Every structure is written in C-alpha cells, then in structure tokens.
C-alpha cells in the first residue's frame, strides 16, 4: 500500500471522526473477577450503558482481588471492581486509590458467605458458630474478607479471634479440599462453592455470615490521578455503573410480600447476560441458574455503607493488618454518588 493511500485513509478516518463525534468513544479498562457480585458491571456492559455515555469499556479479568488494586495503581486499568481486603486498604492508604461506589454487600435475608464445618468436626459437636473457639478455620489469606468475617463472628459470639486457629490456604480450591478431607474444622466460603459441598454431604452448614453482621463487601475504585485528571470520564463511568446496579437489583433482589425473592423473565435474561462473563465455558442454561442462586445483595444505586467501611478499617488496624497511618476517610470519594448510607 502506497503512502498516498495511507494518507487518504488517515484523512478519511479524521473526517469520520469530526463528522460523527459519537463514534469516537473513549477507551477505558476495568479490572474485575468473574464473580456474580460484579453482575451490575457486566449488565452495564452488555446493555450498552457505557456506550451511551461514550465509553468503550474493556473488561480485564483477574484471578485474585489484590492484583486488581495494583493494576489500577500502576495505570494498567482505569477502574477496579472487587472485594476490599486489608492489602487493598494498605495500598489505598498511601493515597493512590479512591473508593467511589459500592459492589456487593452481606445483607440479612440475601445470599452471602456461608460457614461450613467438616463432617468429622460436626460429629464432634461443631454445630454452631459460637463453638468455633479452639477450632481450626481455613481462610484464603491473612487480611482477606474471610478473615474479617471470622473476626466479626468471634466478636458477635463473645470469643477471642486468637482462640481460633487460622489456616491461610491461599486459594478457594485448597479450602474446598481441606474441608472435604477434614484437615481444617471449618471454612467460610462463597455460596456457589458452599452449596454443592453441603448438598453432596461433604460438609455441614453451621451458619450464615449475614445473620451475624452486615458488611460492605467490595466496591468500585479508581486512581486518585484519574479523578483529578479525567473527572468527567469517572462521572460518566459511575452513571452507567449505577444503571447496571439498578438492573441487577431489579432482576435478582426483588422480594414479594412474604420475603421470598421473585424471579421474572427479566431475571432470566439478566442471569444469562451475567453468566456469559462469570461462567464463560459452561452450558448457558445451567450457568444462568447458578448466577441466580448466588446473587449477593447490591445496592440499587451502588451506594456505599460508609460507616461499615470505617468499622472495617478500624478492626483491621486493631488486628495489626492495616497500618496505623491509614486514614479511612481519605480513601473514600463520596462526590460521585448522592445518598451514600451511614455517612456520619
């Protein structure tokens, strides 16, 4: 191809850009895990809410929450949607990250993490959460959400977390293997992994975390630099993200008068869209059913439970998992969404 042709093509592209400004979409990337709890984001992508705001969103899938925060700090992705961990707060506390909207939440009456006992431990009397003292409990990592939730269970049941033998097992498959073989007495794990274990009799359900405490699980965050340099882009992103959260809440969290969740044809359609991202290699009908069965609570306006985040940071500081210098208020930017709950 000659240089002239290339130049002509260049001019054409330039013309197209100036004639059709709507076609020139701003490219942004989002780091996310393949979890149902990020369903609002997936719905916003699938239903074109980002496109309507002029954003061309690319999803980048990660295997663990921590690298997402690192990717946002390093500028590899503009946004991140995932669970909060002690590592996240330590990184954010250095001033590089801001939480701007909510992801999932543990809420009584909705799906949430479950506490399982191994069959052997159950037979020996580990049948409820207050009996966890003196037992070994598998978690993924020190400072993970599971670690925090175990701390909340300990507080609520009046025993010291130090009385529990914490076993960091690094990954979810390791946790499943350890509870099956009885190498740990109990685990706290997400419902989509817990339910098959209970159904097949390989472990026993002894409690739900949401019965003990409500908990702002995760959120949408971006870099401090992004907010100062491209505030308009962040605003557009949050608007579309909120619409996705609203659709998610309508599809999976609507309850009837007796408190049961009602599913409509809309729920099935939304479940199919979310399943495309969460279980990309599975049979669609089965995957959609799994999505519905493990949908965490997400606020319909993606509003954060601010007081809970402050409580989390305070607890993690007391445990020595978050540095004392971290100021929880400075890692929140509440200016993008109105009406965050428990702000004062």
């Amino acid at each position, binding site marked *: 191809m000659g240089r002239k042709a290339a130049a002509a093509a260049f001019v054409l592209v330039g013309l197209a850009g100036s004639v059709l400004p709507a076609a020139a979409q701003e490219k942004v990337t989002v780091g996310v895990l393949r979890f149902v709890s990020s369903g609002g984001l997936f719905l916003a992508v699938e239903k074109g809410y980002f496109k309507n705001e002029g954003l061309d969103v690319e999803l980048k899938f990660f295997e663990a929450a921590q690298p997402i*925060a690192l990717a946002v700090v390093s500028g590899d992705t503009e946004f991140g949607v995932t669970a909060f961990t002690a590592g*996240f707060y330590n990184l954010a506390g250095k001033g590089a990250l801001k939480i701007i909207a909510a992801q999932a939440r543990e809420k009584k009456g909705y799906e949430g993490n479950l506490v399982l006992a191994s069959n052997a431990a159950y037979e020996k009397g580990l049948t409820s959460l207050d009996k966890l003292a003196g037992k070994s409990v598998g978690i993924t990592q020190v400072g993970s959400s599971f670690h925090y939730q175990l701390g909340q269970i300990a507080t609520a049941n009046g025993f010291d977390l130090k009385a529990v033998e914490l076993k960091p097992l*690094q990954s979810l498959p390791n946790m499943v293997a*350890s509870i099956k073989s009885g*190498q740990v007495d109990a685990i706290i794990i997400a419902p989509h992994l817990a339910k098959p274990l209970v159904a097949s009799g390989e472990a026993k359900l002894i409690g739900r975390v949401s019965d003990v405490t409500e908990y702002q699980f995760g959120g949408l965050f971006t870099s401090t630099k992004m907010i100062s340099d491209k505030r308009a882009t962040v605003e557009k992103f949050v608007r579309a993200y909120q619409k996705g959260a609203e659709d998610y809440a309508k599809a999976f969290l609507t309850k009837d008068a007796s408190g049961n969740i009602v599913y409509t044809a809309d729920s099935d359609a939304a479940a199919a869209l979310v399943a495309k991202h969460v279980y990309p290699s599975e049979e669609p009908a089965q995957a959609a059913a799994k999505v519905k069965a493990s949908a965490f609570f997400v606020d319909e306006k993606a509003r954060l439970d601010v007081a809970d985040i402050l409580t989390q940071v305070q607890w993690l500081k007391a445990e020595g998992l978050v540095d004392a210098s971290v100021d929880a208020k400075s890692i929140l930017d509440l200016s993008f969404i109105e009406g965050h709950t428990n702000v004062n």
Partner: protein
Amino acid sequence: MADVVHDLQASPAAASRPVVFRGGLFVPRTHRLIGFAALVALILLWQAASSLGWVSPVLAPSPGEVIDALWRMALSGELATHLSASLLRLAGGFAIGVTAGIAFGMAIGLSSLVRSPGATLVAALFPIPKIALLPLFILWFGIGESSKVATIAFGTFFPTVIATYGAVDNVDRSLVRMGRSFGLSSFAIISKIILPGALPGILSGLRIASSIGIVLLIAAEMIGANEGVGAMVLAAGNLMQSDRLLAGVVVLSLLGLAVSGLIGAIEKRLLAWR
C-alpha cells in the same frame, strides 16, 4: 608494580629487558571491604532515591522504613517467633534431605546395582518444581509441620545426591587402587580415601542445597502456616505491607549468608588437610 617485576639479572642476555609478571591476570582476588562498600552504596542510592522523591512510596519503601519495620518486629518478639519456627523446619528438612542425599549419592557412586536406576530417577525427579507438588504433600502429610519439612527435605535431597555422586566419581582411582594393594578393607577405602576425597564436592553441594532449602521455605510455609519467615513474607505481600515484605526478604538473605558462613567454617575445619 616494582615488586612484581622479576629482574632476571642472572641471565645476562635478558638483563636489558625486565619481564613483567603477568600471572595475576585471571586470578581475581576477594576484597571483603569492596564487596561491603558496593552493598552500602546500593542502599544509600536507594535511600537517596526515596528521600528525593524519585521513587514513589507506593512503589517501594525506603531502606529506612525497611530497617524500621525490622527493628519493630525484633522488639515485639515477632521476629524471634518467625525465625525459630522457620529454623526448626529448615533444620529438620535439611537434616533429612542431606543425610538421605549423601547416603543415596554414595550408593550411586559406589554400587553399579544402584547407579543406573538411581541416577535415572534422580535426573527425572530433580527438575520437578517442588512447589507444584505441594498440594500432594498436603494430601500425604497434612497441613501441619510434616508437609513443610517434607517440602524442604525433597528440595535439598536431589542437589545433594548429584553433588555427592559427582564428587565420588571424581576421587582419584589410582588412590583407590593403591589402597587395595596396601590391603585396606573396603570400609577403610571408603572412610579413609573416598569420603575425604569427595568431601569438597559434597560440601559445595550442601551450599547449593541450603540455598534451595531457604528458597523453598516460602513455598513450604504457604499453606496453613501462621508463623515462620516465609509465612510472614507472604502475609506482608497479601497485606501490601511492602516494608515488612522487604524486611522479611532481608532476614532470608541474612539467613542465607549465615548458613553459607557456617558451611564455610565446616569446610575450613574438615578440609584443613588440603
């Protein structure tokens, strides 16, 4: 340079042309002070980069912060807990791995019956990353101490075997034949000729094995460990406490230096006959 100029006055023909000593060319000498100075210079440069704001505190902590974290851990007694847990695992795993490794290596080096199958098995199993076997070790030995000791034992076993039979192979066979002709028993030949002859090679194998043991400490303490330098480094990584992470790395590095120094001292003692 005057002292290295050999004045060959004895030979009148060469008297006009002094020969410069050139033998020092490929004999590097160790200056402990310069090595130490290089390390200090690197740390100072890093500190300067942090202090002057060239390196963002998000990306890396300053050496001062790392030393501070180390100091706080030492004061609170946390460091002692982690170190003693790790040293026990390291000592246990290393002792098992090295004892078995030397015994097996000697067997390969001395017996044709063991040699072919043994050497093949070692060559086949050595390259397997022990970290990949960790889930199996957990199934076989549980998530308690035994799987951690086993990981280190397996990791140190193979380099010791290879170093040992290599060293045995290199023992001068004429010495063995001489021992035979002087009527020494097989046991005496092994203990008086082969073992001392192979010792330098075995000891340098132990150096490598000990370093591998320290590397595997992290892997061994990945699963179900709350105490130990490896567990501490991993937790610090998970918590994004980079000052504690690097403090742990410094401890591991000092541990490596200490073990290497210890083996050096043993070498000096056992190989004094050289």
